[in-house]
């Protein structure tokens, strides 16, 4: 009896090409420190944890490349002090 071969997904050349050409959109995060009240909402609800804070609570961008542009911080910022823009 022949051994059952494990079904393996074959990646076609077309798919590989598609993967290579698809570049992840990157974003820049701007924090308006004049308006920010350091409440910590943006940091707490960031799904990829790319925001942090320093010793006085000021928001700092830890890893802007990790940002997925969901802007959950933007819709929840009570002070309208954070902005996500597509990197050009």
């Amino acid at each position: 009896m022949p051994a059952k071969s494990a079904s393996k997904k074959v990646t076609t050349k077309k798919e590989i090409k598609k993967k290579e050409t698809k570049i992840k959109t990157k974003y820049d995060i701007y924090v308006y420190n004049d308006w920010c009240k350091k409440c910590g909402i943006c940091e707490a609800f960031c799904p990829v944890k790319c925001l942090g804070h320093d010793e006085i609570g000021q928001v700092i961008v830890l890893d802007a490349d990790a940002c997925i542009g969901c802007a959950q911080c933007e819709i929840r910022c009570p002070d309208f002090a954070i902005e996500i823009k597509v990197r050009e």
Partner: protein
Amino acid sequence: MVKHRDSTHLVHQYLRHNKKFPHVWCPGCGNGIVLGALIRAIHQHQYERDDIVLVSGIGCSSRMPVYVDFNTIHTLHGRALTFATGIKLANPKLKVIVVTGDGDSMAIGGNHFIHAARRNIDITTIILNNNIYGMTGGQSSPTTNYGDKSTTAPYTHIEHAFKISELAVTAGASFVARGTVYHADKLQKLIEAALTKDGFSVVEAVTHCHVQYGKLNKLGSNVDMMKWQKDNSITVQKAAKMKEEDVEDKITMGVLMDKPLPNFTKEMAKLKDRAKE
């Protein structure tokens, strides 16, 4: 369609930049989130700024019209709906939106609220429910829960809380919805829906007061209180399938009432025509 990431840019266009910014609300207050949702909802419908009238009474939430560039009026404590009724009847073309707090609309303005709902006048009311009088120092409000502490109830509150949305349904409002500030996107959608309705539409935005209510009841920071909202809110559809006692402590989110009922503004116009004949 407004993308989330255009939100801040969009909100800034609607603000009065000659006012003092950052605004007066405490760090982490949910009122700013509701203001953002309201502005996005108004923008979504492409209303002219001159056609919008934002009316408010007194309280934390009632500071909202000060910061936005519409026709705004900051009125007496609890009387926002009465002013709004006058504005709507004088010029029915205007889109009248009332922003009010739980103390403002349920305590001193409770009577105005139920009668505006009974009349079913074409006004959109957004009630920010933070369970306490925040601005005046943390006194108990009609929505402070049984057993919770406030500065006027240091040995816990012995009264039972009003359920704003259920009250509005019973009083006869044609559209009633409830959202939370954690679900800011959903809240925007609910406000959008409320703006299109013909009769009295109420959106109850459950928000948090971590400075007064949270501190006295040891509920943690603003983030902890928002996470509490996330964990304790269920949709209306889900609540319908659950037992009544399980739903008691939860925030039922979504549209509680949506029924076209005779509208006071239109009835008034008809009455005027009839009287002229």
